[in-house]
């Protein structure tokens, strides 16, 4: 893409993290409106799903103060997607990991994918939406260039473990302990686990890609065999001792 083509960028602090929007299409009024709407929806998702807010629907639902029927449609959507992720991962993805209702493991990816979709529907077909380190890509950054996504090395901050390259829609999700410590719970034991320094999964759409990254992380040793069986998903894992493994098809995305 010639440097003269102006895209649109936006950075939004929301949901306890930062969302970065990188839109490479010429910004039409429709695209600008969609970006504003996407940002509004992120704040709404925070208000509805935050487990840090006592007044969120999720918190009130967990305490039994409201019933599922009292919740807005997106709660039903997220719970249904969570059930799918849980089923597809043999229970390794869970929204009650520590006995309390906590769909955080899916909400951020879902919200990022939804933002990407809103932009797409408004005519922005070449976009990168990064929700705190988990990314939904569409199209390509320039007619002749692929997207290039750096995967942070969890043990050597500021170095990249790999660069994922794609010239079509792709989601990239990384679970790890580098930023928030051991926060992933083994839903079968209720204990926090850290079998990986980081685990990156690539797949078509971020909601499931992100949920699968969380599930595979919790799964530990058997994660690779499980990921190899998942059609359309590939992964790169870095172990706490610095060793790494990649699924067979991961090389397709690495230059």
């Amino acid at each position: 893409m010639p440097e003269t083509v102006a895209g649109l960028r936006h950075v939004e602090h929301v949901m306890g993290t930062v969302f970065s929007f990188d839109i490479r299409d010429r910004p039409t009024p429709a695209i600008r409106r969609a970006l504003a709407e996407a940002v509004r929806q992120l704040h709404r998702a925070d208000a509805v799903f935050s487990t840090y807010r006592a007044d969120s629907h999720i918190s009130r639902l967990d305490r039994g103060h409201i019933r599922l029927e009292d919740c807005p449609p997106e709660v039903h959507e997220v719970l249904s997607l969570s059930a799918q992720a849980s089923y597809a991962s043999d229970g390794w993805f869970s929204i009650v990991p520590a006995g309390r209702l906590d769909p955080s493991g899916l909400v951020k990816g879902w919200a990022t994918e939804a933002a990407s979709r809103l932009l797409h529907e408004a005519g922005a077909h070449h976009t990168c939406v990064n929700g705190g380190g988990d990314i939904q890509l569409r199209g390509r950054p320039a007619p002749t260039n692929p997207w290039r996504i750096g995967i942070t090395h969890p043990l050597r901050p500021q170095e990249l473990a790999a660069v994922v390259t794609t010239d079509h829609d792709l989601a990239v999700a990384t679970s790890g302990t580098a930023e928030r410590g051991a926060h992933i719970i083994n839903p079968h034991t209720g204990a926090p686990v850290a079998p990986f320094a980081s685990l990156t999964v690539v797949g078509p759409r971020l909601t499931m890609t992100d949920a699968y990254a969380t599930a595979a992380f919790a799964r530990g040793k058997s994660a690779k065999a499980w990921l190899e069986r998942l059609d359309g998903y590939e992964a790169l894992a870095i172990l706490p001792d610095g060793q790494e493994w990649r699924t067979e098809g991961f090389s397709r995305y690495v230059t």
Partner: protein
Amino acid sequence: MRRAVLATTGISTLTIMLLALKPHQVPALAGVTPRTPTTSATPHTSTGAGTGTFTGDPVDTQYGPVQVSITLTKGKITAVKVLQAPDQNGRDQEINSFALPRLAEEALGAQSAQIDAVSGASYTSQGYIQSLQSALDQAHA
């Protein structure tokens, strides 16, 4: 327009430089809070579009000011120089001798990787400030 882009590239480099002052990496500098540098990186030599040396404003840390300059050649970072860094005692100097060259190298590495975005363990709003994604956002803002 072009000028503005170059200036922000300077700032992003400054951000990358400050990344290495992360508390867990450099214990003696723990507690350094990178501020958003004020934006007056000024080219003091310029020999054409996207080429020149740009000096960032000094950024105050609790251990003293840090200041860097970058050299651009046709829009790409070709050199990063540390003009000022805390060196009050032997420990400072020891850290600087290790961390600063590595930082410069990393700033160059990230640039040459030509990446569009960064995926990693979910960062907090605070963690974002020190992230490579933040540097990329600023570089293209």
